[in-house]
């Protein structure tokens, strides 16, 4: 090795000598995600690691997203196997209080209606197929639709199974639109309701006993087992976390699950989802389509929830404020807070937060069930 050949070898291994346009663009995209995470606080817990993972995955030569690269290895271990999204679901279960939903269970149906966003978007993706140079098969359409579930782990779990090549744009769309819920939802909510409907006051929620909260995760898993076993990894992980939370005899596990366990998995999941932002995996016409469709998914879900809310309000004995239907898309607890805020505009004494938590958490279950149906029929 001479000095010249050494420098030549080195030059040929620099980023400058190996950059592709695609990588440059994706680095810019990743920086935008990081900017949104930090400056606009767009779901920073996820979008910061995803964005940084995107940066690392678009570095030429380094091969960090390759199967044997730093992040490729983590992806293979935790995302390709489905392990990380399920561990995160355990954590979310341990953080979720189903009290408001148990206190007024029929509001759970609003979380069912909001899943229409998933299937409407699925249809939309199929309608786009063959147009504008886009090509989506049924599995792709299902993975895109799940963005409307507004649940990150569910979206990552389903997409990693049905359409891993679209995982990057799906995860980015899901978390970005979740962050945009305060901007996307209010106009739709105001458009579909009258001022009088928005001012409806709901009955105070009843007390929920510890026992009811302990039985709840078990009966949910039971129904899931009988009806749609393909959803049991998601629902099972979710309900395990919730049982750990509510049972009262393993508080140290509950604390660790909600703390260091979910944090560590979030970091590893975020960074390794970022590998799907590598230029060759992300820069397709399909990505634009996915972003547009994801936006529609959130809008449709919101509308369906609000409309069912209006119908239920008409036929229910106790009044139901239709706004809380919008919380059925999940995006916990952001969507419920949006409901509270829009409700206060029409009636400054009307605190809908707790009432909106019912559809909000039932929407998480609804999306996991929808994912189970799609897995059962398409995989």
């Amino acid at each position, binding site marked *: 090795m001479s000095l010249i050949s050494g420098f030549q070898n080195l030059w040929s291994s620099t980023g400058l000598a190996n950059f592709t346009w695609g990588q440059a663009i994706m680095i810019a995209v990743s920086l935008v995600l990081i900017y949104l995470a930090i400056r606009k606080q767009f779901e920073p*817990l*996820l979008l910061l690691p995803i964005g940084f993972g995107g940066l690392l995955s678009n570095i030429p030569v380094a091969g960090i997203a390759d199967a044997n690269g730093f992040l490729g290895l983590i992806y293979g271990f935790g995302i390709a196997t489905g392990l990380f999204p399920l561990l995160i679901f355990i954590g*979310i279960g341990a953080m979720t*209080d189903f*009290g408001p*939903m*148990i*206190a007024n*269970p029929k509001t*759970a*149906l609003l*979380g*069912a209606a909001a899943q*229409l966003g998933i*299937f*409407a978007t699925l*249809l939309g993706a*199929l309608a786009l197929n063959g147009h504008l140079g886009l090509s989506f098969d*049924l599995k792709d359409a*299902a993975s895109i639709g799940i963005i409307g579930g507004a*649940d*990150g*782990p569910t979206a990552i779990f389903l997409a990693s199974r049905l359409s891993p090549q679209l995982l990057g744009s799906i995860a980015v769309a*899901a978390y970005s639109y*979740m962050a945009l819920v305060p901007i996307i939802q209010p106009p739709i909510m105001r458009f579909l309701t009258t001022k009088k409907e928005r001012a409806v006051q*709901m*009955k*105070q*929620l*009843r*007390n*929920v*006993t*510890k*026992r*009811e*909260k302990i039985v*709840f995760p078990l*009966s949910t898993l039971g*129904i*899931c087992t009988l*009806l*749609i076993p393909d959803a049991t990894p998601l629902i099972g992980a979710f309900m395990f976390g919730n049982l750990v939370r509510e049972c009262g005899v393993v508080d140290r596990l509950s604390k660790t699950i909600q703390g260091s366990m979910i944090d560590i998995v979030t970091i590893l999941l975020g960074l390794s989802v970022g590998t799907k932002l590598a230029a060759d995996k992300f820069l397709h016409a399909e990505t634009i389509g996915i972003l547009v469709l994801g936006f529609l998914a959130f809008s449709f879900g919101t509308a369906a929830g609000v409309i069912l809310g209006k119908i239920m309000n008409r036929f229910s004995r106790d009044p139901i404020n239709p706004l809380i239907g919008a919380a059925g898309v*999940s*995006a916990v*607890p952001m969507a419920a807070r949006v409901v*509270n805020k829009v409700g206060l505009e029409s009636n400054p004494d009307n*605190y809908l*937060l*707790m*009432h909106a938590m019912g559809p909000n958490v*039932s929407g*998480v*279950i*609804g999306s996991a*069930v*929808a994912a189970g*149906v*799609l897995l059962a*029929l398409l995989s």
Partner: protein
Amino acid sequence: MLSDGLWLMVIGMSVVFIFLGLLVKAIDATSMILRKLPGAGSGDVPSSGGKTRPAARGKEEIAVIMASLADRSRKGS
């Protein structure tokens, strides 16, 4: 393929509604059974369900709840 998608929608929404409908029934049944069970009234602490009575609450209490929700940074669900 579009018709496949339509079927998926009908089937999927049906299952989601059946699932959550059954869950509503299960919750109602549970609360009824537990109320009739011995010891339900005495031994059972009304737990954090106590937190679920906001309708009559003042602005200050809500502010506290919302702040605590903000803390529960929920990682995208």
